[in-house]
């Protein structure tokens, strides 16, 4: 019976595990983040030239290395150009939540961050990022005619799923090598300052969670405790060869019964008399001692001064 229950429990666990695996989102750490194709007067490279650029964002909270990754571009089906990101350059390691910018200028000899391909402003551009094992990490198609000069196609914020055209006006400014959305305030702090200036909301919600956590533990250990007590009882009955009914009877026997049995045993073993000279009185003794009453627990140890 128990084995069946354990089997069902394990199957359920497996099922839950498999289901949740199926729902997992892409866990690529590196994503394409912003692309500018027609660079007239935007960001300059280290040679002072205006070229198209591709920004990659490390959305994880650990450094990730781009070395040996592949950047691929295609302007038409079947025509794909690949740029192998060189190994051995420490700058290819992208710090947590930071960016790497590649110049799509067709000049790979100018350095690690200059690709072997160019982007074509007149056609659609498919750009793919692959890891060293040629597994696709991220891809994007910049449709033809979407971008004007100095406009970029970017995720709304770093790593977000939605893309938008950044025209450079208002809050839609082009952001090479920096956050797509500038965080110039502490949103959480401001939210608390605005809605919970006196802290009551925080106190109520946080205390609710603290109580929930400890109530969960309480319930769990109430159940575990009961199971453990039942188990130990069952084991004890098994070892003594008695059933539930007998155990109940035994547990209900008054102290006097045990005293009488002990006395009878004592008489049998040591002093067998027909007539007793003494009167036996039995008084229930309440033991106030427990291992906890040990004095070592009562106070801090007395300082020993020599």
């Amino acid at each position: 019976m128990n084995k069946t229950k354990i089997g069902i429990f394990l199957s359920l666990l497996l099922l839950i595990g498999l289901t949740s695996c199926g729902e997992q989102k892409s866990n690529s750490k590196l994503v394409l983040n912003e692309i500018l194709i027609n660079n007239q007067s935007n960001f300059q490279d280290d040679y002072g030239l205006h070229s198209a650029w591709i920004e990659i964002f490390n959305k994880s909270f650990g450094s990730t290395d781009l070395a040996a990754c592949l950047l691929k571009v295609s302007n038409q089906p079947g025509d794909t150009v690949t740029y192998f990101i060189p190994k051995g350059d420490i700058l290819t390691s992208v710090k947590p939540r930071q960016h790497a910018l590649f110049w799509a200028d067709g000049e790979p000899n100018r350095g690690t961050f200059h690709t072997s391909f160019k982007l074509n402003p007149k056609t659609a551009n498919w750009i793919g990022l692959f890891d060293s094992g040629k597994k696709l990490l991220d891809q994007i198609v910049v449709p033809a005619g979407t971008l004007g000069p100095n406009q970029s196609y970017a995720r709304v914020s770093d790593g977000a799923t939605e893309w938008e055209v950044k025209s450079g006006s208002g809050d839609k400014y082009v952001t090479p090598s920096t956050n797509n959305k500038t965080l110039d305030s502490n949103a959480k702090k401001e939210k608390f300052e605005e809605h919970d200036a006196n802290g009551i909301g925080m106190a109520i919600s946080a205390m609710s969670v603290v109580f929930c956590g400890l109530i969960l533990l309480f319930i769990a250990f109430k159940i575990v405790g009961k199971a453990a007590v039942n188990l130990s009882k069952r084991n004890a009955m098994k070892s003594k060869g008695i059933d539930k009914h007998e155990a109940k009877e035994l547990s209900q026997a008054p102290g006097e019964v045990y005293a009488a049995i002990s006395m009878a045993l004592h008489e049998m073993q040591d002093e067998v008399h027909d007539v007793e000279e003494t009167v036996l009185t039995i008084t229930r003794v309440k033991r106030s001692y427990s291992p906890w009453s040990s004095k070592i627990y009562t106070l801090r140890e007395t300082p020993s001064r020599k």
Partner: protein
Amino acid sequence: MGDFINFLGNNLADFWTYTGFANATVGHVVMILVGLVFIYLAVAKEFEPMLLIPIGFGILIGNIPFNMDAGLKVGIYEEGSVLNILYQGVTSGWYPPLIFLGIGAMTDFSALISNPKLMLIGAAAQFGIFGAYMIALAMGFDPMQAGAIGIIGGADGPTAIFLSSKLAPNLMGAIAVSAYSYMALVPVIQPPIMRLLTTKNERIIRMKPPRAVSHTEKVIFPIIGLLLTCFLVPSGLPLLGMLFFGNLLKESGVTRRLANTASGPLIDTITILLGLTVGASTQASEFLTFDSIKIFALGALSFVIATTSGVIFVKIFNLFLKKDNKINPLIGNAGVSAVPDSARISQVIGLEYDSTNYLLMHAMGPNVAGVIGSAVAAGILLGFLM
């Protein structure tokens, strides 16, 4: 000859500008006196000597005046100095989880497992944190600073350091010293509140002796404890994870060497480094501010609120319990997780009113629940405010 004497004179004058005497300020003297008071309390009064000796001496180290413009790399706030390197365990928050590992490896959760309802007292005492949070907001601190200050009420030094290093690093020195100071002063702060809030009849309530806890239950506790609390508050993982891991090392019975290391040499080493560097971080130029004074006042208040709420919660809880199952409200203070001092206070006060009523092990239940509760509360504050 005259030039040589002149040279010697200039050298000595130059040397003088580097000495502590030339650079001493009133702030340094005040802080050195504070350090001496800590050492006095530890040695003469035996108030938490394991904490107050390193912190007190650390205050002396951190407040030796020196020429800060000389780039000697001796100060705790000078990058690359030895003290600065040791202090990184505090600023980057990895000392506290290691302390929790040791606490887990030396804590027996049996009292809590045998009587799980005592966990709720540990939860109630966390009102101290959020009471102090509200008062800190009213005093003009921003929510993140208020959260870091409030955690002093959790009475858990490592937790306070961990949280303040994340939420308000600039207040960490004052918060850490305040938390440890008040933990040392638990025997002074708690008894009057406990007496004030309880009647004589309540103080002599005898609690049922708890049942024996099986080995299996003790092994299951850290596993279930980790899963339940960290699924609810993942941001508490560094502290709770290490606490329960340490406990599993102890209770599994098969990793005795690891448990002994965690609960002995490791926690001792980290305690020395933590205490010393926290003390040294109270460099007068950084520490002696009006904010520090406010933090000390708030720290005292948070302990008072935590103790009060623990005791009152037990009294309310008793209204719903059967007559033979009542809880002695004197263990309510133990929800403040200063382990095991607040549990000892319950025992001492309980014995004052009934010399055969031993409350220590009963009080250990809420006491260790308080450790879990304060780590959970820290995780919540981190999750809400970061």
